[in-house]
């Protein structure tokens, strides 16, 4: 599903990715682990074409994501769901509107939005927060809302970049369980984290990065 072909990314005076070659197949749950600055976030940004490589190519199925025109990139992004450490919710929109926005972007009708949004909020246990703004929610609730937004359009791939970085152990556990459930339903999940406990609780493929390089790739990693 995703292919990294000798991808390097060099910022002014730092190498973020160093000749990375990687394959992720559909339905996998891949954890990318490494210390801060190891290149995890850069790697996930490459998949979304939120950043472009200095060298090499990134394919989503047969599509070279960095060769896409703006319109086609928008369409490709609708096939992915993204979850960030800092949630990146739309602060002037309610929980309902944050999710509705992602559905509107995907061209869903008002009827579909009205029926699906309450349902997905119920799935992440946020039914009682329907008309609350992100500022009125806790960290765990915000992250659950971000996950609800990421899965609402039933994407083929979920990219979660340090989704538990700002959460306490209980909320961390909840988020990991939700991501596992999403993966069980057939969605590919890429989880970037530096939290060993999270990786151990997932118990699936682990790619370890250091200084922009993949130094280990284990099937049932710990």
């Amino acid at each position, binding site marked *: 599903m995703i292919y990294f072909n000798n991808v390097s990314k060099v910022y002014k005076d730092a190498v973020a990715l160093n000749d990375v070659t990687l394959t992720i197949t559909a339905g996998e749950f891949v954890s990318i682990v490494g210390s801060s600055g190891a290149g995890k976030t850069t790697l996930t940004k490459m998949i*979304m074409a*939120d950043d472009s490589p200095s060298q090499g190519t990134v394919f989503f199925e047969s599509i070279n994501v960095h060769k896409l025109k*703006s*319109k086609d990139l*928008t*369409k490709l*992004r*609708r096939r992915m769901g*993204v979850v960030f450490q800092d949630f*990146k*919710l*739309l*602060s*002037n929109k309610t929980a309902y509107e944050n999710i509705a*926005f*992602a559905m*509107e*972007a*995907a061209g869903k*009708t*008002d009827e579909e939005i009205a029926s699906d949004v309450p349902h997905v909020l119920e799935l992440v246990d946020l039914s009682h927060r329907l008309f609350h703004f992100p500022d009125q929610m806790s960290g765990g609730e915000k992250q659950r809302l971000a996950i609800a*937004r990421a899965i609402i*359009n039933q994407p083929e791939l979920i990219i979660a970049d340090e989704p538990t970085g700002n959460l306490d152990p209980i909320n961390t556990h909840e988020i990991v369980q939700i991501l596992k459930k999403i993966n069980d339903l057939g969605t590919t999940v890429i989880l970037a984290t530096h939290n060993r406990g999270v990786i151990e609780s997932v118990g699936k493929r682990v790619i370890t990065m250091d200084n922009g390089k993949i130094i280990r790739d284990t099937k049932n990693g710990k």
Partner: protein
Amino acid sequence: MTELKRIIKAGFINFKRGGSVSFASVLVVTITLFVITTIILFQAVLYFSLNLIKEKVDVTIYFNVGVSEEKITSLKESLLKLAEVADVSYTSAEDNVKKFRELHANDYSTIAALDEIGSNPLGATLNVKTKEISQYEDIANFLKSDNALALGSSDIINHSNYHNNKLVIDRLNNIISGAQKLGFLLTLYLIVSSIIITFNTIRLTIFISKEEIGVMRLVGASKMRVRGPFMVEGIIYGIIATIATLVIFWPITAWFGRNMTEFLGLNLYNYYFSNFLQIFAIILFSGIILGVISSALAVRKYLNK
């Protein structure tokens, strides 16, 4: 259609939730529109005053005594055919002497001298007004030329007062063109400054949403879906600022109309209301264009990803 409806709705919601940021944007657009309206009224007063001065300038052609009215009328018609001429009025010799007597009614010796002559010593006159002050010289040259239209005019013309008035006419001409240039430069400066200030304020308000614009794009929103609500907000800024500006100018022009009409020579209150539709259209158009273009340009910067 659904997309457009959603964009408009989002624009209204963002405006409402923007609170103080929306208020600041409306305030800045209002200031710009206030400047534009002030300039419109300033130009009206300036042009009214300049036209008043222009109307007071004319050239009189004095004819020899005894020249027939027919010949003078023929010259009058020739003058009227000139593109530069706005108006020509004829005063007969009899009317001129009557005016002279009225003017010197208290000057006994002058009236006595006139009576002593017995006959009318004054000829008829033609009073010529041109469209522009600078064109009087052309008329003077025309009267001196061998142009077919003015043929024989030099035999019947005694003199014209153009050369006596030349200095005054030239000075007035310089003052008027100077005032117009100054007015234009002032207008340009104020409008450009206001637009830059407005653009930068709106850019700052959108800068606050910079990260959210990136998130919207990552969620898969099209450029128009992201840009649209900001442009709708820009339209709302323009409409509210237009209403505010027009309301503010109501008491201002009323005060000027009551207290400054004599000084300005123009009743600004009457001018404002008799040209209200045009002013409204200019202000509304400026406000909307300013809001929409500023928003669109500011968002564009963050839409590239």
